[in-house]
């Protein structure tokens, strides 16, 4: 049978369209069984590639009970966000508009507007070195969330801490559902989209705050932008800045700043493990009153209180004329470890001890402490510096996770695998915990 030329042409065009659609489908939906690292990368890149609008349900632990909040969430690539809280009744109408530079919070029941810093921050330049060091990343396959295929990945902390599970949309990389689980209290935060629409190309106007008539405006202070070392901060305040001698394994100094509110000036030190943050605030004890909230900490000799806000825990204590406050989404024991190590003091004895054990000048140990390093980190940085013939500041950056092994290898003109082996050999010999701290 002879096929007419027109039918032949249509058949070929049809076949090409089908093949093209298949190719296009394959490009937009990655194959099943994607490695967990690739899924994580997709989730991190999604905000700068995708616009979306959806309704999110958040359930969080608050003051010993679960609170459920519903919020309309708009995201415009790369870093704009609009949040309209719908329920419960006491937050209904609250609005947050973030244009990527600053964020406005509007409270309709009080007709008050608050201007503060953006929530998106350095979204595009996040470094995952620490996260990969401190978390085991596992893929749990594919699941369905609101009718969409999603990769399921788990971030398990190497040391006791919060375990995070994410459901990442196969087509867009957007996190459709997440769950955070505390080792002591179970799920402390769960979020999921009950409805979501993608690729809307949302108008910029949605992300510009329009001041309602007669609103009272507050420009809220926040910790100063940029980062300073504890030594630099001490030059700016009239009290000594205490640096934790030891931190829970995996946490490292991530930056310091001054936090000002009225006449209260506090030093703010941040410690990160790549995914979680412990904040430490220091201020003269006389400049701030003792809070009524929280519970006394059993077994403490100095005044101390633990405030369990649910998702966040706050530990407040006093020592040597300073008020110290540690905040984090971490087990209580983790906060207590930080506080106990600080309360133990003995800075000078530890400087002498570490410098003797690693055969280094005490001045160098003091300098690295002033950069925010803990004593085990100082010991590792100095041992690596001696073994590799590198500057202690460079090895300190490597120990803190701000320099990758490839970058360090490039600087030292070594092959990364050779350097990796040399680092492992050197760190095996480094004192991990100064003996003066062991057993405290």
């Amino acid at each position: 049978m002879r096929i007419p030329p027109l039918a032949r042409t249509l058949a070929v065009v049809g076949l090409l369209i089908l093949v093209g659609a298949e190719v296009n489908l394959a490009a937009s939906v990655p194959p099943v069984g994607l490695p967990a690292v690739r899924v994580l990368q997709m989730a991190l890149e999604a905000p700068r590639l995708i616009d979306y609008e959806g309704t999110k349900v958040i359930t969080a632990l608050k003051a010993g009970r679960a609170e459920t909040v519903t919020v309309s969430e708009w995201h415009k690539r790369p870093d704009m966000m609009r949040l309209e809280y719908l329920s419960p009744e006491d937050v209904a109408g609250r609005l947050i508009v973030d244009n990527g530079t600053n964020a406005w919070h509007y409270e309709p029941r009080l007709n008050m507007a608050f201007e503060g810093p953006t929530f998106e921050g350095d979204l595009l330049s996040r470094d995952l070195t620490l996260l990969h060091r401190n978390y085991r990343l596992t893929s749990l396959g594919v699941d369905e969330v609101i009718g969409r295929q999603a990769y399921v990945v788990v971030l398990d902390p190497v040391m006791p801490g919060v375990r995070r599970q994410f459901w990442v949309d196969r087509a867009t990389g957007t996190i459709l559902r997440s769950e955070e689980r505390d080792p002591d209290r179970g799920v402390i935060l769960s979020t999921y989209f009950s409805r979501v629409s993608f690729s809307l190309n949302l108008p910029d106007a949605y992300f510009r705050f329009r001041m309602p008539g007669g609103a009272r405006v507050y420009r809220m202070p926040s910790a100063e932008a940029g980062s300073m070392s504890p030594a630099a901060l001490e030059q700016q305040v009239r009290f000594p800045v205490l640096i934790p001698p030891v931190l829970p394994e995996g946490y490292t100094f991530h930056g310091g700043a001054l936090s000002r509110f009225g006449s209260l000036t506090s030093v703010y030190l941040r410690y990160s493990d790549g995914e979680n943050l412990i904040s430490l605030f220091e201020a003269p004890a006389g400049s701030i009153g003792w809070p009524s909230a929280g519970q006394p900490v059993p077994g403490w000799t100095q005044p101390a209180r633990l405030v369990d806000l649910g998702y966040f825990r706050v530990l407040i204590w006093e020592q040597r004329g300073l008020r110290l406050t540690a905040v984090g989404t971490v087990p209580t024991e983790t906060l207590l470890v930080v506080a106990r190590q600080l309360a133990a003091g003995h800075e000078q004895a530890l400087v002498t001890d570490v410098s003797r054990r690693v055969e280094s000048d005490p001045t160098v140990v003091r300098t690295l402490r002033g950069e925010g390093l803990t004593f085990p980190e100082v010991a590792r940085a100095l041992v690596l510096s001696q073994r590799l013939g590198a500057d202690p500041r460079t090895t300190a950056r490597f120990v803190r996770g701000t320099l990758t092994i490839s970058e360090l290898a490039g600087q030292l003109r070594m092959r990364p695998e050779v350097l990796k082996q040399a680092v492992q050999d050197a760190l095996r010999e480094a004192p991990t915990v100064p003996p003066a701290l062991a057993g405290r």
Partner: protein
Amino acid sequence: MTINHHRAEQMLSAYLDGELLPREAVEVQAHLLECSACRKAYERLRETKDLLGQLPVAEPPAEFWTAIRTPRALPMRERLRWRPPVWRWTTWGIAAALLVLAVALVPVVKGTVDRLHAAEIGVDLYVRDHALQMSHEPLVDRAYLGLITGDSDLKLVGEPARYGEGTP
């Protein structure tokens, strides 16, 4: 015409007390909008005035009034011969000392007020700073952190974060 910084600084106290001519007040106001140093100086003046206004009025000793009234009670002949007694100078000395003490107490009173205020804001201020920094960590839920910072904003300006919720 605008006034210069030096002149505006001199006029701040009179501006605060409402003693300037309308034209001068407008000029000072315009300068305050532009000059952060003068705004700070104005705020300090205003706080000092507020605190002084809150101090109790010191009652002078009874002898003080007697000293004022006594000469008038005397006959003209005696009044002409009247000389201020030593204790009258003492009273004036005490009054001056009280004034100096009140001025000296201003920073102490202000410090106490600041501490009382800081007691209320301590946890909320730090939780807010922590939540804002936490939002820069990868994979965190910014909608939930927005809720926490929103609650803290309200508490920091002295409002309950939610209906029926007192400040902690």
